[in-house]
């Protein structure tokens, strides 16, 4: 009935080497991304959202990281185990990525033209002249005015917003089927953020690609995503369509996150804050990792890590009390 997903992540567990041995940053993460999907991944620092994204393209440093379990399926391959050559062909061509800080992603001594051309020449074997022409088209596509002149400039001549547009131009150069955008607007001012989100929305529709947008900001997620995955301390805690999630969050962490977001409307009295703090990855916590901060914790929460359970079609929650039949009310 449902078509096969574009990318399918199943039981992903990622560990990093530290002085004290292997630390688990992401554990048992599973979700699918369909063709043309518009997925938002939200979480605070240490939630594992970026680690998950980087794992999909195997971009972690070798030797200091390992996949303790899991599969990332794409086009019949397991990206966690595919030969490096296969992965190199997929990165930037089928699955592209945009990061938070456009300045450190761009090479300061190469022109914009050089940097966009690199992808085109590598993946599409374009000639220098053809790649230049295409680079100008791409700058037009990301709404950089005066593209024919801008293409020969160096990154330091561009504002932060322009640089992020260039990064997006590079990412979409080969018309990827999935664009992963990791906090693409976090370093930008709100007005520029609004422009970049609008651009990403338009490009997704124009190019028919799937977008996975990672953000710590529920507002950004609400405005952009159609489906949302909430992560906490390395686990997916809730996965729901955006309207369902914002209208009726089920996981106590999702509720807390929404309540602690300062708002521009309504009562401006004291801000709500989730008590306690985000646990360190090494911290031994019995059962649910949100348990010590949760106002609704029950004995069952300390007994075992709850499973991610479907409480409705398209709505999964990792909370023992609230995924019981009738428990969500």
């Amino acid at each position, binding site marked *: 009935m449902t078509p096969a997903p574009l990318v399918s992540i199943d039981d992903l567990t990622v560990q990093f080497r530290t002085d004290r041995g292997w630390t688990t940053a992401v554990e048992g993460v599973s979700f699918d991304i369909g063709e043309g999907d518009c997925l938002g991944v939200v979480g605070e620092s240490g939630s594992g959202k970026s680690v998950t994204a980087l794992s999909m393209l195997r971009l972690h440093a070798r030797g200091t990281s390992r996949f303790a379990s899991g599969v990332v399926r794409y086009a019949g391959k397991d990206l966690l185990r595919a030969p490096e050559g296969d992965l190199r062909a997929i990165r930037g061509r089928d699955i592209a990525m945009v990061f938070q800080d456009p300045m450190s992603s761009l090479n300061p001594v190469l022109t914009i033209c050089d940097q966009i051309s690199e992808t085109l020449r590598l993946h599409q074997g374009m000639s220098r002249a053809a790649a230049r022409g295409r680079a100008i088209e791409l700058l037009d596509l990301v709404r950089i005015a005066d593209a024919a002149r801008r293409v020969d400039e160096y990154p330091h001549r561009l504002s932060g917003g322009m640089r992020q547009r260039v990064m997006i131009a590079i990412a979409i150069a080969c018309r990827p089927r999935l664009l992963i955008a990791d906090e693409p607007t976090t370093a930008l001012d709100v007005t520029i953020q609004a422009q970049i989100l609008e651009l990403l929305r338009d490009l997704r529709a124009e190019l028919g690609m799937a977008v996975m947008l990672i953000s710590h900001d529920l507002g950004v997620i609400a405005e952009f995503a159609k489906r949302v995955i909430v992560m906490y301390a390395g686990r997916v805690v809730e996965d729901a369509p955006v309207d369902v999630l914002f209208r009726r969050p089920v996981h106590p962490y999702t509720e807390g996150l929404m309540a602690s977001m300062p708002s521009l409307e309504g009562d401006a009295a*004291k801000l709500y804050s989730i008590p306690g703090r985000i646990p360190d990855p090494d911290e031994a916590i019995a059962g649910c990792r949100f348990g010590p901060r949760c106002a609704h914790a029950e004995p069952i929460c300390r007994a075992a890590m709850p499973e991610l359970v479907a409480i409705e079609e398209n709505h999964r929650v990792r909370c023992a009390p609230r995924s019981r039949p009738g428990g969500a009310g």
Partner: protein
Amino acid sequence: MAANALVEVRDLDMAFATGRAGGKPMMQQVLHKVSFEIGKGETLGLVGESGSGKSTAGRILVGLYQPTGGSVRLFGRDITGPDRRSNLAAVRARLQFVFQDPHAALNPRMRVGESIAEPIDIAGGRSRRDRSDRVRELLEMVGLPRDSAERFPHEFSGGQRQRIVIARALALQPGFIVCDEPVSALDVSMQAQIVNLLMDLQAKFGLSYLFIAHDLAVVRAIAHRVAVLYAGSIVEVAPKAEIYAQPQHPYTRALLDAVPRADPFRVRGPVITGEVPSLMAPPPGCRFHTRCPSAMGRCSVDVPRLRETLPGRRTSCHLYEPASSMELSDHVEH
């Protein structure tokens, strides 16, 4: 109002030399005729995008920069005039600063207790016993365990480090604290804790804050009044409730519109185009006219003045000048 103002800023100008062109120094006008005041126990939120000059204003207020024009009076003393050195020395103990990055603000090799006690040592006059009692008291005030004094900054989370910085800022019982993006580097669930702490401390000690931030939602939680900076000039100042409910300046409106809301059903208006202009060659007339959806002919010629539009509200926009009351009724609806 001005009579009990703790902080009085008048026509503040600040220009930085950014190089030379044709033998002449090139100047970047970062602040242009900025005026505001802050009363006792009041929080003024200063908002604006990067390059608006908000951090520069904060630094001038604690005496880190000498402005190129205008005056700053703190606790009734002019820290910019001819007696600025003695006046600044006289108010310095009552003046504090909390920065964005609590990691960079703490010496990683100093125990937390030593960091907090540093201002006490500089001010002098306390016994060893007295000093360590005060450190413990300060730690308690900001909600940290008493034994934190013996630990190092790296043992604390970002939110806890910001509490340490706040404890240090409180050490000499200041009257006025400049908070420059104090919660921007923190996670959402930690932001609320720090904002609430700052509000509790204000209620307890009658502190005044200049709260500098780019996040309008955070400012709404803590400020009593809000000043909006654009390209070095204040475009609007108003009490919090009014500026959020009925922003006057088109830039304030655009800024509020651009903030993403946690509401997937919101229908957002058109996104503002363009970017903040270069401060080396700012546009003539109103600096916002190049991006303004309501710009008229005179906006590119005449510089609008910050003037009272309603009691307690000041806006610098030709739409709100008496001579253009016709346009006012045309444009305000939006």
